[in-house]
């Protein structure tokens, strides 16, 4: 990833951080909207759509603050960046598979957001702290929804149990990237703007493992493979297809407004 990519997208460190968090929310939101017309029943359809809408709300704030000094607004950042310029963690872009995969990913991600936003309320960056104070209440509902389903499926039939444990095995390695420490995070943690990821991961593991054990899904896998790259713009091929779809109308009619 060349420095120019990052510079062009979000100049200041706090803005690069907002970009990462915003891309996480935006990309996962898109994956959740893919369930529209395909959800198991109406209540799940409405729930997943509402969670996606909340995540878009988060992304709008975060992308707006990410683009402040470069003068790029939320639409410009959403619709006119290539996958190499996106900074979401890989777990957000992985393609959907079955409902178990979706609720396990949502459990991992919403618990991450819950521990992150809980801590971010005390950020030295006032706008970020005020935003976190609002978002933490909303992700609490996401987490409760996901946890409820993971327990039902894990502790359900043999079929739902097997699918849920397969989803845990596939997704668990991707969670490490959410708590990875790099130069940007070190600087922001030192300044009190971002919370310390090591503390977040401890809280996260405690809460996620409580749900997994209640779901009878045993202890989380521990093998060493830790996929990363998203924070530097190195993504799986899935993101390119996702952006091609998400950006298609804007690229077909540039500058169009409602």
């Amino acid at each position: 990833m060349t420095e120019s990519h990052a510079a062009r997208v979000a100049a200041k460190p706090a803005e690069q951080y907002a970009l990462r968090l915003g891309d996480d929310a935006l990309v996962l939101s898109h994956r959740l909207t893919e369930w529209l017309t395909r959800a198991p029943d109406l209540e799940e359809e409405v729930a997943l759509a509402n969670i996606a809408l909340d995540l878009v709300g988060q992304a709008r704030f975060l992308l707006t603050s990410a683009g402040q000094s470069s003068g790029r607004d939320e639409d410009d950042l959403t619709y006119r960046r290539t996958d190499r310029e996106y900074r979401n963690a890989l777990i957000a872009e992985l393609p959907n598979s079955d409902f178990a995969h979706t609720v396990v990913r949502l459990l991992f991600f919403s618990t991450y957001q819950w521990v992150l936003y809980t801590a971010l309320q005390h950020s030295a960056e006032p706008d970020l702290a005020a935003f976190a104070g609002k978002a933490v209440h909303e992700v609490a509902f996401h987490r409760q929804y996901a946890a409820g389903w993971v327990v039902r499926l894990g502790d359900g039939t043999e079929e739902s149990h097997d699918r849920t444990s397969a989803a845990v095995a596939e997704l668990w390695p991707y969670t490490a990237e959410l708590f990875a420490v790099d130069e940007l995070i070190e600087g922001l943690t030192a300044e009190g703007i971002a919370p310390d990821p090591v503390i977040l991961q401890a809280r996260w593991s405690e809460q996620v493992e409580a749900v997994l054990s209640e779901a009878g899904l045993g202890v989380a896998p521990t093998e060493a493979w830790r996929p990363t790259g998203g924070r530097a713009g190195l993504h799986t091929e899935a993101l390119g297809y996702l952006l091609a779809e998400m950006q298609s109308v804007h690229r077909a009619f540039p500058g169009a407004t409602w």
Partner: protein
Amino acid sequence: MMNMHNPAALEEAAIEPTAVDVVRSVPDPEMPYLTLGDLGVVVEVTADAPDSVHVRLTPTYLGCPATEVIARDVESALRDVGWRHVAVEYCFDPPWTPDRITPEGRRKLAAEGVAPPPARTTGGPVLVQLTTATRVTCPRCGAEETLLLSAFGATPCQELRRCGSCGEPFPAIKAAR
């Protein structure tokens, strides 16, 4: 908390009713029986010149699509009564919670079959709760035993519940977490 505008300046401009009342009486686009005043989203209305007013609102939910419509409705409502320069801005401080809904707002909700939010739940967010029966009374028969069907409803601020006695499903405003 509510920073009243400078009445003297307004007298000269003879613009009635006052800007605060105008903003407060704008209806919510998705629940038109509720006004912004009822909902508790109006934070501050300050007139910084005889024909110039600045409005600060706090959004209910981050992703709520009504927030943009509300900003536009507030702006046009103020222009209609003679304010030429109108600035509407959203802020997160103070953050909106359902506790900001006024008693009048709660009465209107119940009258429309939407259960108002119960008092703030003191405990932290409950992690795994498949069915939550909290003190939300049924807007039809008033029974207190109601069951959560889904934490997500027609709008970001609503959930779906069912009454334990008359059995009717009904929307309710989500309690603050």
